[in-house]
């Protein structure tokens, strides 16, 4: 099919779907309305389990199975990407070349982003008490921070600071731990992923039972997987060479 044909086909299909979507939006409650049934149920449910951050309560307690699925996607994708980016039969991995080499264009970006990320990382830590969850966010911010070392410095420097294997272990441990804690819930609370740990005083870090533990496991996993992922891409860019190709 030529370009024009393809675009016309898309215009036809997309046009019909767009009309339907616009009509549907008129049937939604107005933007900013106060009708939120699930919210009205989730907030008391979070309070019942002493979880101040309702988002965390939803993620790690009420709908914890979603999070289990999502973080399994995370590990599966990381394993998949690692499998796909492995050096193929006609390639070899070799030591990262040129210790002093820096990537000029990215260096600048790094200098701009570094302080932003650091400030945010600190912010996440400070909010720890008020937002007792945040494994996802925490893991991402930490991983990002670690990689700014690369952007501002060199790949070998990063590699010394950050061997990949411990992060692979961290990632798998996080995901497997989530599964095992969930299974433990079957015997202790009668349901998979039941919140079986003792609850503490509302608003305290350790008040939320399994929520905080699951959140920490997810944090570990997100940190690990982001780093393993990026390192596969770095390896492709820097150290994997076609056999026989000379620099």
């Amino acid at each position, binding site marked *: 099919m030529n370009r024009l044909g393809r675009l016309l086909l898309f215009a036809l299909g997309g046009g019909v779907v767009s009309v339907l979507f616009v009509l549907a939006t008129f049937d939604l409650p107005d933007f900013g309305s106060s009708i939120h049934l699930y919210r009205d149920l989730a907030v008391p449910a979070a309070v019942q389990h002493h979880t101040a951050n309702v988002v965390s309560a939803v993620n790690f307690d009420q709908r914890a199975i979603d999070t289990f699925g999502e973080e399994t996607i995370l590990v599966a994708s990381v394993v998949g990407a690692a499998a796909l980016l492995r050096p193929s039969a006609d390639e070899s991995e070799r030591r990262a070349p040129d210790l002093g080499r820096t990537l000029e264009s990215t260096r600048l970006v790094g200098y701009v982003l570094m302080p932003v990320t650091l400030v*945010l990382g600190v912010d996440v830590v400070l909010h720890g008490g008020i937002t007792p969850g945040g494994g996802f966010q925490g893991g991402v911010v930490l991983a990002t921070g670690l990689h700014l070392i690369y952007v501002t410095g060199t790949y070998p420097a990063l590699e010394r600071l950050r061997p990949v294997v411990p992060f692979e272990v961290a990632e798998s441990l996080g995901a497997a731990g989530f599964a095992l804690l969930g299974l433990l819930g079957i015997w202790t609370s009668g349901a998979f992923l039941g919140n079986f740990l003792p609850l503490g005083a509302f608003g305290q870090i350790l008040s939320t039972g399994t929520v905080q533990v699951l959140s920490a496991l997810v944090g570990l996993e997100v940190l690990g997987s982001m780093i393993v992922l990026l390192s596969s891409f770095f390896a492709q860019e820097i150290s994997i060479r076609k056999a026989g190709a000379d620099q």
Partner: protein
Amino acid sequence: MTALVAIALTVVAVAGTAVVLADAPGRQAVTLSVFGMTLVVLFVILQAPDVALSELGVGTAVVPLMVMLTVRTMRKDRRQRGHREDE
């Protein structure tokens, strides 16, 4: 709807369009990062600080970085391919 939300939404729409219309592969990482930043602002305005934080790490840093590395790898591989075919 407050004007602020409307403006943030419009900026997101414009930035998204820019990502899709920017053809040069080298520029993908930059436009995507900017798009991510506009989303962060929108999420903050929509009272979703947790989401904004995730988007900040993923949308403005991790994914653009991967895109940049992918484009670089592709250039490198194509250079090597060219070398081999010349020989």
